[in-house]
């Protein structure tokens, strides 16, 4: 028997954006009933891995205009400038609220919140908590959300389908991973806060749960995915594991060196100018790849890498400002950064693209919202500046939460019978997957997806390689239909969850490859060898990837300019 539950607001995902949206919703209307449905317990959300910091104007020698301009310049002028304007205004308030809720921000001697330098930022405006800001932010938000009885958590429940009726989203079908049963949760608005899709790549800082679920959910209901081609490579990840070594290492003065012990970001021209190690991420990642291709990298068991040298910072500063970096380097690279350089190479880190939303977080499907990395409100355009993402989750999570409450008031209750049918259909589909026979296995398809994404949509791209990836992914989708699942059990069947996640990843990977093949220019993180220059005449627009019967259709969406005129991106 299908269990049906009713709430006013349904939030999918328990990370920074989801938690902030839930808090904003119950603060906007204390009587609203909020369901937080998350695939994992909220404190496991990938926000926990963020290390560097969260950006917001705090110092007297800083102002909103500078933060705005840094962000738009970082975005290679593809970010929507009304969104950026709102973002920089709200950022300090959101981080202050978080401080009131107990977030242990690192402090100056006078008790004010300390800030540090970050890539592409003109001054120190990244608030930090040693090098575990994501962890502290997530736990502060999660513990703060516990005080609201109106927020009902559905932990380890995997939303596999949005239930749409009468042209609006009415609820979600969620697989209770523990019980193995599919449940229908009805609501007046749904907010997607499921994070990015880094795991479609072989080498990523992202955790195992970053499989683009929210993007796939929206895409399957006809909601377009925007700017999917822009994938951020973070310059400093540990070879092999892909674990992130935060940009704060460079913010605190670390050097990036090649095998000639040369600070090539200073001695050579990679467009970062005087910012050197603190240039934007896309530029530094490209510089490292070029150094390696020029034979000035090191060779290791996990491929080529360069050095991140912190030895001149001294043990005291490292232990005070970068304790986790030291722990991670010793544990996962066998290197103590106080005495030796850390091996690093560019690693997939963040998806600028995502579910197309307006400034309120609303999508084209009435009642469906999205916030955080899953969404593309287009704050980040073609390249995100370090430490803007955590703040984005707060600013737009809160806005989506408030707006959804307003929207929900004008919506009548869902028609249960129509929705029940869709949920029962979904339950049958999932049941058929358990122990499904077939010629293919999950792991090989996953590895092939990842390798074709790396070859086609890596740091440097060209038309032929991207077209090949689009073809290979379509082939993998067909092979996925014939996948076999060994585990036919009902209770906590993680193989079933993995299969559903792979289905989502393949969907999202296709939209990424198709959008990348469409954009014939180099902009921000999307760098092509066959179209080296940025082409504002023909490509100053957002790509919208629609799902339609023939496959994937790419449309255009205008960029909201206004405050800052596009100019050449020089540092």
């Amino acid at each position, binding site marked *: 028997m299908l269990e049906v539950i009713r709430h006013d607001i349904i939030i999918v995902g328990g990370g920074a954006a989801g938690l902030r949206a839930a808090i904003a919703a119950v603060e906007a209307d204390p009587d609203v009933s909020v369901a937080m449905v998350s695939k*994992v*317990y909220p*404190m*496991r*959300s*990938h926000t*926990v*891995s963020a290390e560097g910091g969260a950006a917001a104007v705090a110092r007297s020698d800083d102002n909103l205009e500078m933060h705005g301009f840094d962000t738009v310049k970082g975005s290679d002028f593809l970010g929507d400038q009304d969104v950026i304007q709102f973002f920089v205004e709200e950022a300090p*308030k959101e981080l*202050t*609220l978080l*401080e*009131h*809720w*107990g977030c*242990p*921000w*690192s*402090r*100056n*001697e*006078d*008790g*004010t*919140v300390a800030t540090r330098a970050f890539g592409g930022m003109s001054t120190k405006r990244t608030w930090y908590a040693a090098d*575990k800001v994501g*962890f*502290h932010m997530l*736990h502060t938000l999660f*513990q*703060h959300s*516990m*005080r609201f009885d109106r927020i009902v958590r559905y*932990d380890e429940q995997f939303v596999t389908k949005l239930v749409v009726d009468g042209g609006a989203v009415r609820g979600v079908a969620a697989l209770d991973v*523990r019980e193995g049963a599919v449940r229908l949760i009805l609501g007046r608005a749904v907010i997607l806060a499921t994070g990015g899709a880094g795991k479609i790549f072989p080498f990523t800082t992202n*955790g*195992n*749960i970053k499989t683009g679920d929210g993007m796939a959910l929206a895409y399957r209901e006809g909601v377009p995915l925007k700017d999917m081609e822009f994938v951020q490579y973070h310059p400093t990840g540990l070879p*092999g*594991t892909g*674990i*992130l070594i935060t940009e704060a290492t460079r913010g605190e003065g670390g050097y990036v060196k090649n095998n000639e012990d040369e600070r090539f970001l200073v001695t050579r021209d990679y467009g970062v100018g005087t910012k050197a190690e603190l240039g934007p991420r896309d530029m530094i990642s490209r510089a490292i790849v070029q150094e390696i291709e020029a034979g000035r990298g090191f060779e290791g068991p996990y491929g080529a890498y360069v050095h991140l040298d912190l030895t001149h910072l001294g043990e005291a500063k490292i232990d005070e400002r970068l304790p*986790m970096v030291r*722990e*991670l380097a010793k*544990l*996962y690279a*066998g290197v103590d950064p106080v005495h030796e350089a850390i091996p690093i190479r560019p690693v997939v880190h963040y998806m600028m693209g995502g579910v197309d939303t307006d400034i309120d977080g609303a999508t084209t499907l009435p009642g469906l919202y999205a916030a955080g990395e899953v969404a593309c409100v287009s704050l980040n355009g073609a390249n995100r500046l370090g430490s803007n993402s955590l703040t984005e989750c707060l600013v737009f999570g809160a806005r989506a939460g408030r707006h959804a409450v307003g929207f929900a008031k004008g919506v009548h209750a869902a028609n249960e019978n129509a929705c029940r049918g869709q949920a029962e259909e979904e339950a049958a589909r999932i049941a058929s997957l358990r122990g499904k026979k077939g010629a293919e296995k*999950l*792991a090989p398809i996953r590895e092939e997806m990842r390798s074709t994404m790396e070859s086609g949509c890596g740091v440097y791209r060209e038309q032929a390689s991207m077209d090949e990836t689009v073809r290979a992914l379509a082939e993998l989708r067909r092979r996925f239909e014939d996948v076999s*699942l*060994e*585990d036919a*059990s*009902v*209770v*906590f*069947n*993680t*193989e079933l969850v993995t299969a559903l996640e792979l289905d989502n990843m393949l969907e999202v990977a296709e939209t990424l490859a198709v959008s990348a093949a469409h954009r014939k220019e180099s902009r921000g993180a999307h760098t092509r060898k066959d179209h080296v220059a940025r082409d504002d005449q023909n490509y100053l627009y957002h790509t919208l990837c629609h799902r339609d019967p023939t496959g994937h259709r790419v449309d255009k969406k205008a960029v909201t300019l206004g405050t800052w005129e596009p100019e050449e991106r020089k540092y």
Partner: protein
Amino acid sequence: MSDQKKTFVVTRFDPDKDDAPRQDTYEVPVEPQWKVLDALNYIKDEIDGTLSHRWSCRMAVCGSCGMMVNGVPSLTCKDPLSNYGDRVEVAPLANFPVVRDLVVELDGFMNKLESVKPWVLTAKQRAVEEGTYRQSPAELEQFRHFSMCINCMLCYSACPVVANEPEFLGPAAIALGHRYNLDSRDEGNRERNEIFRGEGTVFSCSYANECSEVCPKHVDPAAAVNQAKFGAVIDWATSFVVPRREKE
């Protein structure tokens, strides 16, 4: 694949098939710098797709992959295989009901965590316009290491009192409650100390110190619990002398 092999004896349990947990044995070709989790994921992908376990960040910060390895609570994404010989026994966390294979029931901990009110309690809600609180680095240092708890549950698995006294709040929940008591922005000491003296009382702790031994993040919950005892006693004593004294 390297030629070195290790034998993994993994506890299995499917409530629909098994009356009680059983053990499966796997031969796994291991890489030198693998952690225990890498071997479990190899088993899942290549040998036995029915094995269920929790993991996500693989960088020892999300707290999902706590298990018993050779009888000791361990964060498997952080635990190098080189620590172990040819035979590695992996079992679900001790002191927890087992849902499936290596997956345990966490809601018991969530109830305990919520009951210590782990959030900033203030008489008057500070307005955003007033800006952030002033908190000196020294004040931050007072509670910072207690705020490092990643809720991985290793301390609960190591604690003999958790094993024998179901109401006991347990190391992590007390440490997080104590963390807020020590936060200069919080005024919830009295309320939390009453909870600490209540049903799941902190005084049940008889100082095995195993919780601090196994903690992968060096939170030292044993220190937190015993400091909380101190605070609860002082608060209890002063409540006779100066009833309902608000923290100045």
